[in-house]
């Protein structure tokens, strides 16, 4: 950890708002973007990321220097966003489950499991919307890990600290998340064809 960051942390602990803002200058955009990806909505993303940053400020006394400040901060951001989502009870749509639209209307969502045109992923070009939609269809755990690793580019060890789980779990969850994402993409592209 740089000495500059250390002194900023020290000043933030004494309640220096300016020092804290300097400290999170490089991180808040990423925090906002993580929130935006989890919550998919500009207002919620702002509320949740700011709530998280304030939590960081209030709890900076409890930061024990065992991990880097960055990792500790993002842990709070990720947890706050997930709690925020849970509280808002955004309807989480699982990808192959019966969805009840009230009354007697029921829709079955299923992922088709035929791999007849396997070259579809290589040949097609993905635009940002397609990728975004596919990420949004992932389950929360998988989405979080894809956001952290593939969109924001954290290393495995950083992710294991942010999510407080061991490396094996990070690897296996990432594997499964990517496999799921690939299936979703293949499915989407097939529909487009």
């Amino acid at each position: 950890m740089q000495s500059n960051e250390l002194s900023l942390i020290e000043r933030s602990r004494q309640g220096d708002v300016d020092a804290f803002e300097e400290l999170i200058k490089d991180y808040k955009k990423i925090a906002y973007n993580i929130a935006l990806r989890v919550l998919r909505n500009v207002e919620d993303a702002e509320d949740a990321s700011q709530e998280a940053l304030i939590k960081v400020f209030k709890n900076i006394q409890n930061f024990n220097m065992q991990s880097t400040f960055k990792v500790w901060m993002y842990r709070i951001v990720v947890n706050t966003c997930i709690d925020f989502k849970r509280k808002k009870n955004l309807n989480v749509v699982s990808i192959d489950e019966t969805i009840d639209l009230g009354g007697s209307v029921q829709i079955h969502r299923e992922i088709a499991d035929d791999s007849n045109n396997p070259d579809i992923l290589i040949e097609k070009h993905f635009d940002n919307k397609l990728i975004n939609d596919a990420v949004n269809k992932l389950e929360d755990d998988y989405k979080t890990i894809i956001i952290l690793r593939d969109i924001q580019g954290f290393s495995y060890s950083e992710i294991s600290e942010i999510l407080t789980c061991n490396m094996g779990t990070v690897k296996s969850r990432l594997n499964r998340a990517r496999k799921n994402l690939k299936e979703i993409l293949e499915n989407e592209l097939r529909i487009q064809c």
Partner: protein
Amino acid sequence: MNCDEIRNLIFSYIDNEADEDEKLLIEEHIENCDECKKELEEYRKIIKALNDLPDEEPPAGYCKRLHEKLLNSKVTVFKDESVIESNTPKKRKSKYGWVKYASLAAAVVLVFTVAAINNLKLSGMKSTENNIAYDSAEPSAPQAAPRAESPAELKSYSVRGNEFADQDYNNQERIASEESGYAGVKDKISTMSLDTREMKIIKSGTIYAQTEDYDNFLKDLEDKISSLGGFIENNNTEVYQVHNDNKLMYGNLKLRIPQESFYELISYLESFTEVRRKNVSENDVTKEYYEKDNKVKNLEIQEQHLRDLFEKAQTVEEMLQIENELRRIRTEIDALNISLADINDRAAMSTINLEVEEVKGAAFTIKGEKSVWERAREGFINTVNSIVRGFGNFIVSIISAAPIVVPAAIIFIILLFRIKKYWKKKI
């Protein structure tokens, strides 16, 4: 090494987090295997696309609003003592204070109740005094009990939810029957169904657990489930990591279990694995179920009417019209019956989604490296526990000895005074 094992390794390879041996293995394999090469390319492309997703700029004024919130939070955090600037934490404080005193009072009542009952058992005398003590203690016991258990259990909460739903349902029924053309019939049905109504609750759970021996765990689990009358609907097992020639397994299981054994299975899982995440929900669909059920009954009555009409029909046109209508009703009935059967099935058989991960290596290292801090913590907890226990015993023994000790102490003090006076007189 086969393709499946390679495919679990390619992700760390893509991320540059694979070690040298794995790298070599993969590169060698890819030279000869077009399938895996293609897979690798596909993932590279997806990951690149994810990487290239642009970051959004926070909305205008984001920093300013954050700054204000930070200043506000500073007021509450750093000047907690000042009354004017932070009245919200003050309020909260008084609210918590109430809870604190209430729980303290409950605890005191509880201690006295226990002591009184204990005393009764210890002395075993049949004197009237004891009877009085017992009588006065009894009504306070149920008062204290619910307070102690007050962190409401999921179960009791959902029961309350049901009551509410029932009320709602009754009201709706009444309104519906007043409006409906089939008023008489519907009324009969609703009163009938109210008597025989059975709760339809769909229980489901998600559990994420770790185990040290996956194969044995799975075998035991299978036995347990079949003994409970359930089955494994879906078993998806894979090797997710190879660790010193040990294959570490990962399984994603979907368990179906008769709803009455749901909690038994969950506690079984909790005792045989290390549960990392658990989510249990009970979804009440009673209202929905009986609404559909009533719809079916009404439709059947309608169908009967149409059949009667059909008998009386004279022209072909009429017959065709009635037949059309009959077909429409029949399809609707069938659709409703299917969803009723579906609800029945889901209510009778609960679902548990179980993720199990084998963690041989990880568990060993944690056990091996029990740090000084951890041991100190254990010791600390043990000490605190024994202090609490000792304190409890102390109070119990004091209170149970009180009937003897208090008069004895009074006599002792009186004697002391007498003796002092006596000595003073003498001097």
